[in-house]
């Protein structure tokens, strides 16, 4: 009768750290390094403005709206001269 071995002998189940060829782990660390360097050089510096920030009345009203209404408002003032 022929004796059979179950399987071929295997090496360690897992390649230990710092061993083996550059596999997934190597790729991962490379990605982390490149990301870190990108973060280092891609910094955006924000400087405080020299002039004080003036809080204007009704800041939510846009200039184009005022320009659109200007003519109508001018006529309204003329036509209601008693209250202007």
């Amino acid at each position, binding site marked *: 009768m022929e004796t059979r071995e179950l399987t071929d002998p295997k090496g360690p189940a897992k390649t230990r750290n710092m061993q083996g060829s550059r596999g997934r782990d190597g790729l991962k660390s490379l990605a982390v390094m490149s990301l870190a360097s990108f973060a280092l050089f891609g910094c955006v510096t924000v400087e405080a403005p020299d002039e004080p920030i003036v809080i204007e009345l009704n800041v939510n009203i846009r200039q184009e709206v005022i320009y659109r*209404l200007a003519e109508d408002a001018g006529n309204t*003032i003329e036509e*209601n001269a*008693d209250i202007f």
Partner: protein
Amino acid sequence: MGDVMMKRLTRAALSGAAFAVALGGVVAPAYAQRDPAYAAARAAGEVGEKMDGYLGIVGAETPELRRIVNDINIKRRSVYSQRAQATNATLEEYALTAGCQAILATVPGEKYQAPDGSWQTRTSAPPMRDSRCP
């Protein structure tokens, strides 16, 4: 003979009437004048034009000034409200625009509110207005 004369007269009268109507249309309609008390307070610099399109009391408040200012502002608000609706704008947008125009329309000696909130006396120089004013 008399009939022809009559026709001429009628024609002259009709054309005269038409001319009068045309003249009336050309001449600008006389708008209502300011109330004398309001006009006096305005000329004295006791009331001034605010940036928001309404009238404000410049110095010490008196019941009489408060009455004048409230009366004008209630009427203004009503007009602003109607025009804002007609122009598809908000009441605040329309009022602020009218404020730009009202400050521009002040005459030397009258008071208006500068963008920093202070009361200024209008001179012959252009008034200090909000940067968004046209």
